[in-house]
C-alpha cells in the first residue's frame, strides 16, 4: 500500500513539473509598463488591466498605439499562458520597446530539484527538527512534573509544539531547500494529497482524528480517560494515535480515528484532582449513620484527599447469593490523579480497620 502511495506521489510530482514547464512566467514588473491610453487608466486594478489590454491588443493592436506619456503600474506578479505571453512578447516590445521590462523565466527541471545537496539539507533539517522538538518537549515535561497543578496545562502544549515544529520544518524544506514556487507546491500538494488519500485512508482518518482531538479537546495530555475498555493517563496525543498508560503501567496506543468515534470518559478534564469511588459491602443490619461518619472521616484523614470538593457516602441495596447487602459507595476527590488507586486503597484500608474496631462488621461477616 505504501509503495503504491509513494509511486503515485512521485508520478504526481513529475506531472506537476511537466505542467510547470508549459507555463511562461512573466515576473518582475516593478518597472513601469506602458500600454496605451485608450484601454487603461491608473485607477483600474492590475488584474483587470492585464486581461483587458491583452484582449484589445489581440483584436487590433495598431488601433491602440501606446503613448509614451501614459503609465500603468501592474502591482502583482503576472502569469500568462504561452499563447498570451506570445502576444505580449510580440506586441508590447513592438509598441513600446524601451519600456517593456518583464522577464521570462522557466522552471528548474526535476533533475535539479532532486539533487544531492537538497536531499542532504532536507535530512539535516529533519534530524535537527526531531532533536529540537525532543528537547523542547523534555523541558516542558520537566517543568510540568514540578507542579501538580500546572502539569496537565503544560503537558497539553506538547502536541502543538510537535505539530508546529514539523510544519515549520516542512515549509522550510519546500521553500528554502527545494525553492518550489507556490504553483508547483499547490500542484504537488493537490496531487500528492489525492494519491495519499486513495492509498492510505486509515492513516488520514487517524491524522484528522488527531487534529480533531487537539481542536475539540475532549481530553489533554495528562488527563485520565476511558476509551472502550482502556482506562489510564494520556501520555501523548500523536497524529496517528493516542497513547495511554494504564493502571498496570502498560502503554496502549489507541488509533485517533477510534478515539474520535468512541465515547470517551474524562475523569479530571484538565484538573489535577478527580473523583475516586471506594465500594464496601456491609451487612443489611448495619447502622448506616455510624458507617457514614466513619467513611467520611476516613476520607478526610487520608493523605491523598482533595478537600475542595465534597465527600459523599451512598448506600445501595444489592442481592448476592440470595442475601441482601448494603453496597456503600464513598465518593471523594484525590489531590493528584496519579494517586487515584493509592487513595482508593487508603480509604478502603482505613474504613475497614475502623469498621472492625467499632464492630460494624461482626465476626461472622468477615469469616
Amino acid at each position: 500500500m505504501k509503495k503504491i502511495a509513494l509511486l503515485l506521489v512521485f508520478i504526481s510530482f513529475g506531472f506537476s513539473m511537466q505542467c510547470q514547464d508549459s507555463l511562461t512566467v512573466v515576473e518582475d514588473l516593478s518597472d513601469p509598463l506602458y500600454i496605451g491610453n485608450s484601454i487603461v487608466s491608473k485607477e483600474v486594478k492590475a488584474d483587470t488591466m492585464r486581461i483587458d489590454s491583452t484582449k484589445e491588443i489581440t483584436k487590433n493592436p495598431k488601433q491602440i498605439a501606446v503613448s509614451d506619456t501614459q503609465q500603468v503600474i501592474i502591482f502583482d506578479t503576472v502569469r500568462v499562458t504561452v499563447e498570451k505571453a506570445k502576444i505580449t512578447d510580440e506586441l508590447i516590445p513592438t509598441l513600446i520597446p524601451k519600456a517593456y521590462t518583464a522577464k521570462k523565466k522557466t522552471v528548474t527541471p526535476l533533475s535539479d530539484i532532486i539533487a544531492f545537496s537538497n536531499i542532504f539539507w532536507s535530512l539535516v533539517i529533519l534530524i535537527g527538527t526531531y532533536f529540537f522538538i525532543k528537547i523542547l518537549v523534555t523541558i516542558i515535561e520537566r517543568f510540568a512534573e514540578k507542579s501538580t497543578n500546572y502539569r496537565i496545562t503544560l503537558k497539553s502544549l506538547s502536541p502543538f509544539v510537535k505539530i508546529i515544529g514539523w510544519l515549520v520544518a516542512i515549509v522550510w524544506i519546500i521553500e528554502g531547500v527545494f525553492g518550489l514556487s507556490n504553483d508547483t507546491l499547490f500542484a504537488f500538494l493537490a496531487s500528492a494529497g489525492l494519491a495519499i488519500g486513495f492509498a492510505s485512508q486509515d492513516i488520514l482518518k487517524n491524522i484528522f482524528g488527531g487534529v480533531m482531538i487537539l481542536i475539540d479537546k475532549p481530553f489533554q495530555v495528562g488527563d485520565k480517560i476511558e476509551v472502550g475498555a482502556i482506562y489510564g493517563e494520556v501520555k501523548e496525543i500523536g497524529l496517528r494515535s493516542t497513547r495511554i498508560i494504564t493502571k498496570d503501567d502498560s502503554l496502549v496506543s489507541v488509533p485517533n480515528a477510534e478515539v474520535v468515534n468512541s465515547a470517551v470518559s474524562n475523569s479530571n478534564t484538565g484538573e489535577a484532582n478527580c473523583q475516586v469511588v471506594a465500594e464496601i459491602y456491609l451487612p443489611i443490619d448495619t447502622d448506616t449513620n455510624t458507617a457514614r461518619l466513619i467513611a467520611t472521616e476516613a476520607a478526610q484523614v487520608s493523605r491523598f484527599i482533595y478537600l475542595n470538593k465534597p465527600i459523599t457516602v451512598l448506600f445501595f441495596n444489592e442481592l448476592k447469593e440470595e442475601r441482601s447487602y448494603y453496597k456503600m459507595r464513598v465518593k471523594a476527590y484525590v489531590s493528584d490523579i496519579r494517586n487515584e488507586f493509592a487513595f482508593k486503597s487508603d480509604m478502603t484500608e482505613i474504613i475497614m480497620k475502623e469498621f472492625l474496631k467499632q464492630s460494624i462488621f461482626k465476626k461472622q461477616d468477615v469469616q
Partner: protein
Amino acid sequence: MYRRLYEIKPLEEEGFFEGRIKESAKLEEAFNHWNESNISSAIIVGEKGSGASSLLNKFVKNHNDSNITRHQMTTLACTAEEFSLFFDALFEDNKLRDFESTVNFLNKGRKRIIILEDIQHFYLKKPNGFEAINLLLELISQTAKNVFWLVGISTFSWNYFEKTIAIERFIRHKIILSPLNEEQIVTLIMKRHRVSGYDLKFDANQSQRKDLFTSLRKTTDNSQEGLKKSFFTELNSFAQSNISLALLYWLHSAISFENNTVIIGKIKNIKFDFLTSLDATSIFTLHSLLLHDNLSITEHAAVFHQAEKQSRMTLMVLEDSGILISQNGEYTINQLIYRQVVTVLRNKNLIH
C-alpha cells in the same frame, strides 16, 4: 544583644508592635459584643510567625483587669480523655474529670476570658482524631455566654477544619491576620534596630542581586538608600510578609559588626530545588507537619497508619537534610525553609 532584639518570640514591648490595627479593632469589637451579655467568641487565624501571639499580648495588656486564663498549646490532646485532663490541669483544684463538669464549672461564677493558642493541637489527622477539637467547639458553644473564648489557630489548620468539621459555624468572630506590606516590615525591623544603638550600613558588593535583569540595567543605585530599598524588596520576596521569617532573614544578613556599625549583606539565597524532588512520603510528612506544627514519631506513625520504625526513618532523613528540626522528640519544619515548603506543597495541590 543585637541578636536578642530580633529573637523570634511574641512581643512584650508594645513599642515594637507594628500594624494589625484592623485586627486589633475587630478583636475589641468581638470582646465588647460579649461584654454586652451576648454570646460571642473569636478566633485568630494566622500563619506561623505572623504575630498572633503579639496581638494577644496587646489584648491581654488592655484587659488586665479581667479574669483571664491563657495557654499556648504545644503538645497533642486529641482524645476525650486528654481533653478533660487538659482542662483539669488548666483549672487546677477544680476536679474537672469530664466534659460535663468542665461545662458546669465554666458556666458558673465570674465571667472570664479564656485564651487558647494553637488549637490545632486538639486533633490528629487519623480516624477519631477530631474527638477533642469537636469537644472544644462544643464547649465553646455551651459556655460562650459566661466565657469569652479567644482561640488562635494556624492558617492551614483553619482551612483544613473549615472543610472537615465546618469550624466557622462554632465561632462568631473570625480575625484573619492579613499579610504586612513591605513598608510595615521595614518599620518593624528598623524599630528594633534603632533600639540597638548601632549604625547601619548596607554592603554595596553583596546587597545587590546578581541576576540577569540587574546586570542588564545600565545604572545601579549604589547609595545607602538605594541599597536599603533593594535589600528590603528582596527580603520581602523571601519572607512574603511573615514577621518571623523577616526577622530571621535580617539576622542572617547581618554579616559583621565594625566600629559600632552593623554591615548588612546579601540575603543568603537558600536553594530549595531539592524540595521539589522529595519522595511522596516526605511530601506528605511535610504536609502533616504544616497542619499540626509538630509531630512526634508516635504521632507520625498514627497519622500515616504505619509502624513507628518507618516513621522514625522518614523523620530522621528529613532532619538530616535540614528540612526538619527536632526538639524534645517533636519534629517541626525548619523555619528557614518554611516559605519554600509552603510553595512546594501548594504546587503539589495539597494546600490551597
